């Protein structure tokens, strides 16, 4: 095989960047005229986090950075002067080399393919090639960047599963929107603030972001800011030094230290005491942690993900939460919708949990009866997905048959709810409502108050009883005198 001839010269932004393809490695490539003194080109090159290679006009390797060496498995001495195709071992090089199509007017070209490294792994890659031109516009070589897109492919695969992203299930437009932004959000290192009601899946989303990020190999440390007293929380978060307080018999690293090179997940951040908010703020600014009782700090490279069910803006307005901390955490805001607003997801989640929990509990596949399904579809789920999961788990444990009926559901779903009575009464055409008068599960109008509802209840009962007060009072479960008193109160004659 022929090796590259003599030295290759590269020119960049009007300054001369000379890279000598010296096969012995005795004269390292240098950049001249960029600073007062020449600087080492390879050292600068190695700082780049994606694979970069400079090719001569004959497509022979001039210089390759450390990231690409790690990706291909070839070391410094091995590659110089060899054909790019033999070192990169990519299908692109053999079938669709973009470099061959470059002319002096060409711009960068981006192609996806794969390579086989020295470890015999087939790695999906994205190659971006661009011609290197001298100050006269003549092509003197080529620059290629090689990105390892294994993670992106993995994310694509998981996101292509219908209505599912890393075990987060949903097909509602709100959830689809979240699934779309999660992969790109995971690739960034910015702080994330996840908001949403209890049980909407904030913890799952935080873990998903961590596992899909470049920090996935690092630790994922979770701390509940509302679970511990102030002093304990400070020690837990920042660690303590031996002798810092009574009982501190040894040095203890904090969660921030443990999460170094990983992700720190602060759940219930709205419950973080003000004093600790200041300390967390200092850490976010300086990236340096001082454990309790220690004068020596250490630098931690941690990505922060915070979550809360509280309205932090409102708390910041009331002085219970520091605005500056809110602004630092609120770089990327992710709001998880409550289940009642996720149209079409309840049925999907019911099926999902019936399948997964049946397997976990070692039970045969169960089906929901029509009545039970209607109850579950119309329930408002204040506890969101967690509540739905618990209801299904309860039903599966109670149910001995293949079919889950209303009697297998938790009784509180069928308990009278004064706010729902009017709506239940409004739906006499519903076969369920007519058969199960006592089931009051239909959601109430948000703008109704109790006196209005009670008034409508009395009117409905009187109409149903044909104006007979005794019968109306009995159907309402009241004494006749109570009905009379309430009628007077509401001006019903």
């Amino acid at each position: 095989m022929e090796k590259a001839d003599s030295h290759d010269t590269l020119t960049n932004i009007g300054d001369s960047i000379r890279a000598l393809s010296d096969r012995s490695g005795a004269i390292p490539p240098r950049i001249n005229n960029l600073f007062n003194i020449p600087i080492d080109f390879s050292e600068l090159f190695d700082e780049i986090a994606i694979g970069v290679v400079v090719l001569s006009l004959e497509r022979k390797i001039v210089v390759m950075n450390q990231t690409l060496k790690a990706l291909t498995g070839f070391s410094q001495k091995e590659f110089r002067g060899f054909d790019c195709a033999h070192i990169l071992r990519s299908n692109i090089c053999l079938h669709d080399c973009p470099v061959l199509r470059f002319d002096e007017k060409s711009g960068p070209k981006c192609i996806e393919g794969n390579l086989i490294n020295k470890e015999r792994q087939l790695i999906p890659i994205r190659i971006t090639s661009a011609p290197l031109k001298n100050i006269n516009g003549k092509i003197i070589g080529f620059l290629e960047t090689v990105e390892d897109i294994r993670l992106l492919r993995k994310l694509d695969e998981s996101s292509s599963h219908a209505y599912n992203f890393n075990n987060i299930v949903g097909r509602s437009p709100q959830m689809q929107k979240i699934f779309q932004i999660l992969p790109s959000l995971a690739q960034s290192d910015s702080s994330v603030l996840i908001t949403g009601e209890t049980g909407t899946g904030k913890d799952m989303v935080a873990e998903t972001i961590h596992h899909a990020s470049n920090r996935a190999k690092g630790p994922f440390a979770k701390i509940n800011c509302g679970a511990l007293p102030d002093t304990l929380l400070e020690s837990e978060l920042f660690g303590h030094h031996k002798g810092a307080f009574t009982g501190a018999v040894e040095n203890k690293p904090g969660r921030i230290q443990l999460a170094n090179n990983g992700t720190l997940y602060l759940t219930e951040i709205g419950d973080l005491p003000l004093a600790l908010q200041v300390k967390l703020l200092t850490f976010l600014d300086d990236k340096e942690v001082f454990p309790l009782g220690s004068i020596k700090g250490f630098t931690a490279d941690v990505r922060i993900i915070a979550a809360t069910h509280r309205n932090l803006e409102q708390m910041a307005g009331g002085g219970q939460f520091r605005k500056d901390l809110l602004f630092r955490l609120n770089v990327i805001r992710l709001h998880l919708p409550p289940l009642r607003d996720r149209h079409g997801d309840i049925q999907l989640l019911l099926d999902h949990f019936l399948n997964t929990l049946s397997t976990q509990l070692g039970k045969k596949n169960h089906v929901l009866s029509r009545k039970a399904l209607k109850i579950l579809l119309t329930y408002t789920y204040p506890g969101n997905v967690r509540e739905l999961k618990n209801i299904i788990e309860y039903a599966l444990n109670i149910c001995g048959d293949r079919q889950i009926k209303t009697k297998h559901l938790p009784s509180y779903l069928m308990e009278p709810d004064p706010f729902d009575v009017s709506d239940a009464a409004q739906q006499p055409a519903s076969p369920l409502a007519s058969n199960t008068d006592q089931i009051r599960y239909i959601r109430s109008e948000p703008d109704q108050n109790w006196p209005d509802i009670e008034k409508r209840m009395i009117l409905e009962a009187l109409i149903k009883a044909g104006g007979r007060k005794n019968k109306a009072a009995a159907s309402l479960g009241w004494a006749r005198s109570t009905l009379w008193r309430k009628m007077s109160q509401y001006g019903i004659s």
Partner: protein
Amino acid sequence: MASKKILIPLHENDVAPRFDLATEVQIVTGAGKSGSAVKRLVVLPRASADQLCHLILTENIQTVICSGIEDDYYQYLTWKRIEVIDSVVGSCNLALKRYFEGKLKPGDIL
């Protein structure tokens, strides 16, 4: 050295960078310096690692000299008691010469 049957996936005159993308192979039967080597060029209908493995087995190849090979195929061939010398970069003739001299190792850049 006893007579051996060697297969080398080709890319022009070099060892093909990829086992799975090679469309021609050289099959060499010989015993190195002492005996004469018989070379045969086989053009494949299409590039396929599976078909290449099939050819290796049907031709009773004892040694494969190649460059990039996926681990699955490497493991399969070694499991079939075929010697695989992979990550060899350089010309086919030089690789053969080194092999018959008993000096060719996996990862050699010639």
